[in-house]
């Protein structure tokens, strides 16, 4: 077989694997969209939140895995998206405070605008920072998230400050209200699309450049890849996903208050990514689902009067979730820096190899 044929055969095999993967993704997304209609009323909200956070985590894992940069402020982009879409539907009027539903724009349009606002802010922050060492972006994004959060209080005539605001309009598409199970289905459909886009991004020309950047930055730069621009693209993509998730969040909760957007939310996204593995988009979804579920369970646990014989104070839920997530982040980064899930899967594969007696180099 000449070299050309080998290349063509390889390309064909890659395409076939691509098709199988695509079909699996479509099937999984279909299942994820069907699932909320089978869930009980109380579980739908939790499931919806998993999807929203998964959108944010997918963007962050690409940034952390391929750009070697960590954002401690994805919650800020989530916040911007949520308040952008929520407030746009109410109409902003500086004199009469807000709440003029007639003046607001259509919720669907508002949700569509949200990711662009977050992305624009990411461009502003990202341009000067992408050439710097990781900790600068970490602190800059954290600062941005804190600024956004403080503005909620400083501009309380628009945002309602600590009391928040109720989003009165409902998201409707062609006369159908997107609420409850339908909303969750839409969110998970978007998760599927985000996964597809991300996989394409990773395997495209841009993606190969990104992998080169991740593997060896000076070498990538030497072979003509504009490292800073590629990192910026990832940062903006991640911000846009967070903005989209925030935009949808407005019509999930129909209420916007500062508690849903605190700094801890930004840090939770980092925990989700570290569970799923840096750079693994499917891992990010697993991380989001795990963290939302664990947080929910911890909240239940924390409201008990006593736990294992200890009296729990009223701050129990906070203590439990801060403690567990802090410890989780430390342990994962210490012992499984490439992510908890990939290490576990790697462990399973190693055991299986040993059982079947196959050599290590085998596919």
């Amino acid at each position, binding site marked *: 077989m000449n070299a050309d044929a080998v290349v063509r055969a390889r390309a064909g095999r890659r395409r076939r694997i691509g098709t199988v993967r695509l079909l699996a993704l479509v099937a999984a997304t279909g299942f994820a969209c069907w699932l909320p209609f089978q869930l009980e009323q109380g579980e739908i909200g939790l499931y919806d939140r998993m999807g929203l956070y998964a959108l944010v985590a997918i963007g962050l894992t690409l940034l952390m895995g391929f750009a070697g940069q960590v954002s401690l402020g994805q919650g800020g982009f989530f916040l911007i998206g949520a308040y952008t879409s929520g407030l746009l539907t109410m109409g902003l009027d500086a004199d009469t405070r807000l709440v003029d539903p007639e003046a607001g724009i259509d919720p669907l349009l508002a949700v569509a605008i949200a990711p662009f606002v977050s992305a624009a802010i990411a461009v502003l922050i990202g341009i000067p920072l992408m*050439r710097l060492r990781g900790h600068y972006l*970490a602190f800059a994004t954290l*600062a941005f998230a*804190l600024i956004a959060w403080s*503005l909620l209080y*400083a501009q309380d005539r628009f945002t309602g400050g600590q009391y928040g605001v109720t989003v009165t309009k409902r998201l409707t598409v062609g006369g159908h209200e997107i609420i409850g199970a339908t909303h969750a289905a839409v969110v998970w459909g978007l998760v599927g699309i985000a996964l597809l886009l991300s996989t394409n991004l990773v395997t495209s020309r841009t993606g190969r450049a990104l992998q080169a950047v991740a593997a060896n930055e000076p070498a990538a730069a030497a072979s003509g890849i504009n490292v800073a621009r590629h990192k910026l693209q990832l940062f903006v993509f991640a911000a846009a996903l967070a903005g989209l998730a925030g935009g949808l969040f407005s019509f999930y909760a129909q209420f916007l208050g500062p508690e849903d957007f605190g700094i801890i939310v930004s840090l939770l996204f980092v925990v989700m990514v*570290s569970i799923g593995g840096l750079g693994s988009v499917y891992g990010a979804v697993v991380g989001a689902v795990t963290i939302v579920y664990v947080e929910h369970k911890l909240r239940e646990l924390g409201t008990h009067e006593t736990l294992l014989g200890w009296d729990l104070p009223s*701050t129990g839920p906070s203590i*439990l979730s801060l403690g567990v997530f802090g410890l989780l*982040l430390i342990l994962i980064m210490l012992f499984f820096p490439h992510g908890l899930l990939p290490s576990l899967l790697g462990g399973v594969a190693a055991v299986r190899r040993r059982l079947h007696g196959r050599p290590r180099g085998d596919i």
Partner: protein
Amino acid sequence: MTTFFQLVVVGISTGSVFAIVGMSLVLVYRATGIVNFAQGVFAVLAGLLTYSLGKHMSLPLAAVLATLVTAVVATLVAVVAVGIRGRTTHLASLIITVGIAILAEAVLLAAFGEVPRSYSAVSDRAWDIGGVLVQPQYAVLTVVALAAAVGLTLFLRHTIVGQALVASADSPRAAELIGLNLRSVAVIAFAVAGALTAIGGVLLAPTVPVAYSSGLSITINGFAAAVVGGLASIRLALLGGYALGVVEQLVIGYVDPQYNLIIALVVMLVLIGWRSRGELAV
């Protein structure tokens, strides 16, 4: 004009704390290459410990004990943050310290509750200088920050341990080749920085009550101060701290108290952006 000078005086005193934390961050960064996100936690721990211990003993003794305990905690943080040799990258270390900061909030909340704590200052009198009130606590803070800057600079330049700290960050491999133990170096740097930040926290609490969650804003303000010198200069971190403190107070006095953190953060963002012209990654 009196108002202006009053705000500047208060600004220099709060700025001293930012400077102290900023210099601690610089020390740790120069020795280990790690930006310690949990640095502000040490100030909070020391402040809350002083408050609790102060109920059973004299305040100065409580303050000294609190500082020592915090330095010991800082050595533990060092061991965890440095991580596993050859596996834990600096970015991973940063994320580990983020985890430590989150965990610390839980521990502090469980141990001390959520009420912000304060105790009496070195003196409850104030000097009146041409209408400007200067509390002795402000003077102490400013002097401590200055002394720390001088002390750290001399320590890094003229002592063998200081040189070892700088060397191990400049070239970890070379430092190991000449027999330096990087983990010990990190432990020393974290302990010194932890004790310094603890002193800042002990002196801060009488003027600004500290709560379990204050660590984050202290870390951020300290980082903003340190960024002025690109995380490398003790001197510029000191100046940065003072400047940041004064700017924040002027905003509180003349614009709107709600905007003080926002302005500080915007200043930091601009500074980082400005820094980015000089320093490249990798």
